[in-house]
């Protein structure tokens, strides 16, 4: 696990590199993303999260590195002395644009954070270039690896599929899944150590799945909700939020956030209670909180139902 460490070792050596013509000094071990951020270059990221091991799969953060045949992912490439990096070259803009178009043409991004549509306009992404979205494959979870889905001559294949409603706490709507691997990491060795979910299948049919696609109640899931906490697309969602959205009553503008300490045990996890119309509608924990790093257990995450139960 990726804890906050107290610096006991000697201060790290500073490295000097050039980004977009500017000289940047960063401590050894920094990534190009950290270097970009240090000088205020806004770099899009989707699969990167401070508290998870980088998987560098979304490729929206790519930058051009002099001497490298291909672009490199800023989120995981370590800075080296003398590197010359462009974060806004023609190649970088073109790749970021296409990556965003690839995602937006195949996945429902409507519940992503607003940055995503800002990036789309910054890079001029137009997902409609690939044709109108196809209805998707209801049997995605049963496709055999390498099995060829017939290719459409008019539209663009999507991952559209019905949401999975198989438990009382949260909903999995994989038509919104960009396969960023964050939930798998949060459920596995980066936080929860439960390993209830993993990536199955391959290629366009790769998907997040339990074993044999069994429902969560039949899986190892302990409903800690840490996967919900890291999901950037709304594919994983509190049932309360899902139902309120369906009923049209979800209103973030009427919500307030109260910070408190979880009452259930002595660990002292910070909770953020999201309250709408006097009801707790979801519970999160700050990513930078040094006890939780954003992760909680089932009691902190879903125990609020006891707080507000009338019995």
């Amino acid at each position: 696990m990726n804890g906050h460490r107290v610096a006991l070792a000697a201060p790290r050596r500073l490295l000097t590199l050039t980004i977009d013509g500017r000289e940047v000094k960063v401590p050894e071990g920094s990534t190009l993303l950290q270097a970009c951020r240090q000088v205020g270059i806004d770099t899009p990221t989707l699969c990167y999260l401070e508290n998870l091991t980088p998987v560098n799969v979304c490729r929206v953060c790519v930058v051009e590195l002099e001497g490298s045949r291909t672009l490199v992912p800023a989120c995981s490439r370590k800075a080296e002395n003398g590197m010359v990096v462009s974060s806004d070259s023609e190649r970088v803009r073109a790749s970021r644009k296409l990556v965003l178009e690839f995602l937006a043409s195949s996945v429902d991004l409507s519940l992503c954070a607003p940055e995503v549509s800002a990036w789309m306009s910054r890079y001029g992404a137009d997902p409609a270039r690939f044709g109108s979205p196809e209805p998707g494959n209801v049997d995605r979870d049963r496709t055999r690896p390498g099995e060829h889905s017939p290719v459409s001559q008019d539209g663009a294949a999507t991952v559209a599929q019905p949401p999975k409603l198989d438990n009382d706490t949260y909903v999995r709507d994989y038509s919104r899944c960009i396969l960023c691997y964050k939930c798998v990491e949060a459920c596995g060795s980066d936080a929860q150590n439960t390993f209830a979910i993993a990536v199955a299948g391959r290629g366009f049919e790769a998907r997040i799945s339990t074993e044999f696609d069994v429902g969560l109640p039949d899986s190892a899931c302990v409903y800690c909700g840490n996967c919900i906490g890291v999901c950037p697309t709304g594919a994983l969602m509190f049932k309360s939020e899902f139902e309120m959205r369906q009923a049209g009553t979800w209103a973030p503008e009427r919500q307030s956030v109260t910070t408190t300490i979880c009452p259930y045990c002595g660990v002292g996890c910070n909770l953020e209670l999201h309250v709408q119309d006097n009801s707790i509608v979801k519970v999160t924990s700050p990513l930078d909180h040094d006890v939780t790093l954003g992760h909680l257990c089932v009691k902190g995450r879903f125990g609020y139902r006891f707080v507000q139960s009338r019995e």
Partner: protein
Amino acid sequence: MDLRLGLAGPPTDGEKAAVDSVLGDPESGWDGGTRTQRDGHMAVGGHQARGRRHLLLPALESLQERTGWVSPSGLDYLCTRLSVPPAEAYGVAAFYSLLRTDPSPPTVVHVCDDVVCLSQGAEDLCREMEARFGAEGRLDPETGVGWTRSPCLGRCEQGSAALLQRSSGPNGRTSLAPASADAIAALLGGTDPEWLPAAPVRTPPEQRRLLRRVGRVNPASLDSYRAWGGYQALRAALRMGPSAVVEELKRARLMGRGGAAFPTGAKWEAVAANPLRPHFFVCNADESEPGTFKDRVLLEQDPFAVLEALTIAGLATGSERGYVYIRGEYPEAAAGVARAVAEARRHGFLGPSVMGSDFNFEVEVREGAGAYIAGEETALFNSIEGKRPEPRNKPPFPTQAGLFGRPTGINNVETLVNVLEILTVGGEGYAQLGTSGSTGTRLFCVSGCVQAPGLYELEFGATLAQLLELAGGVPPGRSLRAVLLGGAAGSFVGPQDLGIRLTFEDTRAIGASLGSGVVLVLDDTVDLGAILRRLARFFRDESCGQCVPCRVGTVRQEELLARLSAGRTIGSVQAELQLLREIGAAMRDSSICGLGQTAATAIESAVRLGLLGGLEGSV
């Protein structure tokens, strides 16, 4: 880790036997055995059992082979024994096309419809299959036989090929080439005839170096191998010592034959110099590049040569264990190499104190299970480790952190066999062969529309025209349209390029590559549009799905070709071609690995050559 196991019910006897045949009998109730009173007093599993995670794929393969699929109870039992989360193990099983996670018929026939076979009438064979065995891909467990289309099976010189996968009766996987529905039906009826490797080597014996023994040595006999000069190179290597071997490779300027053309000497030197221990060495025999069959010929017909070269690699790099990773579609090669390992070990050419020296070296044979991407070196490591064969981000490189995170050398089969030649004639002597930028000889897999398809060994420097002449050219009355050089990841060249010398430097100069040595010849009888669409489909089907540019880009590329060929373009043809270039650039620039980075190369070269005319009339 809190694993939740046992939900799927107890394994059947067959499932238990399949898993135990790989893992050995369970020792206690903790790993799936009968619970005894003693089990209450100890807890095992965890770290110790997970140290055997690398046995996951072999055990999944055993379940498939013996029970016809990987069932929930079989997987659950396997996970209990290895202490692996079922979701992860399922994620691994559901990656490989030769493993099935739904009930399926006891016999499944995989019929090649990839580019070479497609150019030789694979669609006719598929129609025959449909007439006899029903619709493709419908693997209904109630029927005795199901069939699916398959990517290249590595028997392209035969013009058609099939792989039979059976889970009942005496036979498991069997290759058949050439293949016909009648021949397949005949095989299904009875026991297989004795397997006889075909000998598609066309170069006369006196001109061969790497292929010197092929077709002449008895591949099952160590004595026969030694009578052909076998194990003299290893003897020389043991006498010279590791660093002198590396020096000879550098003097020879040997470059990798697996596709990336990396200098072999530098790779071995980097592994040898790495202080982290242990070191490993892997022979990459995953050969899945469409149109490639050279490694199969070496593995099937000269397995001891591959082992001898791997042993030398182990010695030179300070490795204590070697792996031969063979694609699952080559069951005959895997059986032959496994037999050769046992034989070599029995006679002291492997194992403790190799040939009486103080060098110890063990070799394990690992089989793939249907995944082109597992041939990418870091995906291959993940495959051996029992993980999904997804390529890793580089750096770190294999020489720094490879198999099990250790310094690892990895070479293609053909690259390794060159080492025997180098130690026989010396690095200097070897470098005399070929050109300044491409030393030695090269194996060319010539297939498609030529009169004499097969394997050719030529000194570097020969031209494409010379090679095609040796292969008899296109059949009379037809004319050459294009040649696919280097495989799906390679590129097309046209009749105007016949004068090009087949070397690393000359092909690079025209933006092509030799890749894995594929020379697929296409004449005017071939539907080039269909070939291009098949290439696009190949990348889509074989993408691991990890990174966005390749996972979605390969789909968009295939859709775009489908639109072009159906004449249903979005906007003008020119606009579609522009979009195709943009898709290609993004895949090349921002994909994690070589699959995505080259997924557009052949198609773009076809556009440049004007071959897209085959897609539709209006281009």
